[in-house]
């Protein structure tokens, strides 16, 4: 839509669509999240980085309303939604496809849950199989797909539930470099075209820099935000940038934050 150097200054809304303040969460005897605040404006993409086990997925769970924070507030679209689900599309870290449903039936679950007829749901989903690289696999069972295809199906299901706000927990983890690249590009395009708000977790720093408007780095648990980095790169961002100076400067900074926080 817009290729000014720093996208969020122009096309992002001004009020925040997701806002967390001082969210705390622990499990029986284990402090996991130790007070995290963040906010996303409409159309913004925020990438979360942090050591394994620091509570990234736990935080996603809280934002999705699947769990109650021990304290703090989670506000989505201006409403306090602590423990309330349904406000976001949430792609879990595992693909969570139902093994007994074929791909078409799996991806249309959110539409069917909204009360749509089977025919209508399939009519809506059918044209998406191409862009998601699943054409021809509509009637396969998940077990007959490769890991990458399963992940794409899970992404498609999330997209069909809510495309305006999406939480993506390591969406491209099991993909090979090329497929990953293709989907990253596709997601970037989608985000700008639809003004989608995205909160994503990733372990891939290049991916974070390529897709996100901002990157937040979490500490070891009990975790806090170590640092927040705006990505000052123009959009659309091409793969070639990965080797450019601006990109590398950001990458080096993030690396050093991560290193400082990791144990």
């Amino acid at each position, binding site marked *: 839509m817009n290729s000014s150097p720093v996208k969020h200054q122009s096309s992002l809304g001004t009020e925040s669509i997701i806002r967390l303040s001082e969210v705390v969460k622990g499990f029986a005897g284990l402090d996991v999240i130790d007070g995290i605040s963040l906010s996303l404006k409409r159309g913004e993409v925020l990438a979360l980085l942090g050591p394994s086990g620091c509570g990234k997925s736990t935080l996603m769970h809280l934002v999705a309303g699947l769990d109650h924070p021990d304290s703090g507030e989670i506000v989505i679209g201006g409403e306090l939604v602590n423990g309330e689900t349904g406000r976001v599309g949430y792609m*879990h870290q595992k693909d969570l496809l139902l093994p007994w449903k074929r791909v078409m039936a799996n991806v249309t679950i959110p539409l069917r849950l909204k009360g749509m007829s089977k025919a209508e749901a399939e009519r809506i989903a059918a044209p998406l199989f191409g862009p998601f690289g699943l054409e021809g696999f509509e009637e396969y*069972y998940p077990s007959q797909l490769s890991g990458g295809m399963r992940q794409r199906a899970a992404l498609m299901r999330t997209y069909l539930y809510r495309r305006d706000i999406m939480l993506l927990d390591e969406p491209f983890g099991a993909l090979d470099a090329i497929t990953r690249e293709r989907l990253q590009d596709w997601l970037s395009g989608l985000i700008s075209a639809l003004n989608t708000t995205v909160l994503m977790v990733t372990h891939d720093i290049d991916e974070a820099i390529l897709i996100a408007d901002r990157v937040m780095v979490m500490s070891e648990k009990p975790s806090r935000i170590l640092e927040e980095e705006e990505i000052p790169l123009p959009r659309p961002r091409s793969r070639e940038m990965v080797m450019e100076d601006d990109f590398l400067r950001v990458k080096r900074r993030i690396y050093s934050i991560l290193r400082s926080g990791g144990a």
Partner: protein
Amino acid sequence: MAAGLLFILLWEAFCRLLGLAEYILPAPSAITAALVRQFDLMLPHIGVTLFTAMSGFILSLLVAAFFSLIMDLFPVLRRALYPYIVVSQTVPIIFIYPLFLIWFGFGLTAKVVVVVLVCFFPVAVSLIDGLQNTDPDLIDLFRGMRAKPLQIFLQVRLPGALPNLFSGLRIAATYSVMGAVIGEWLGAQTGMGVYMMRSYKTFNTPRVFAAILVVVIVSLMVFAAVSLAERFFLSWKYANLRSKS
């Protein structure tokens, strides 16, 4: 197949060579002869037994589903009810059957209740185990999409418990016909249990064994039917296996 044939031949030889009396162990030839001669007479009995067994089997599925469901919904009830379900399997049916007759009368009902009592246990145990094993993340996925508890149950937990359920159903199917026979043996007008009892009490051992043979065959048919249903309902599992081999 071949093993079965060999077994029958050995049995026949065993009976003939040792000159075993019919009342100890009739030879396969004698059993077959009895079966052929008595088949017309058996037919109505077979029908009644099969009907009883099937009614009981289906009912036991419903009863097991009911118990599993409420035990699954209310963990308090699970801990409270489980012992009673175990108890129901340890009480010898012979002694409580008169109570069944008093409560349910002399008709089919009391026999069906025996089948239910015999069959619902393996089904309930396996269904409860199956429901317990649902991946909590799958439930979270559905909760996140605002699915209602019933939708989660029907679309996630129940289908996920089906493989376990079918293990139980195969065991129950195996027991169902024998359960009906026991019910009939405890007192009935018709049915293979009655037929066997009458043959037994008139010392016609080949007929008893012919009747056992029929019971076995009918049981195997019910078992095969459940296995077929399993293939149908769990086709995704077999699709998976096919692609792996």
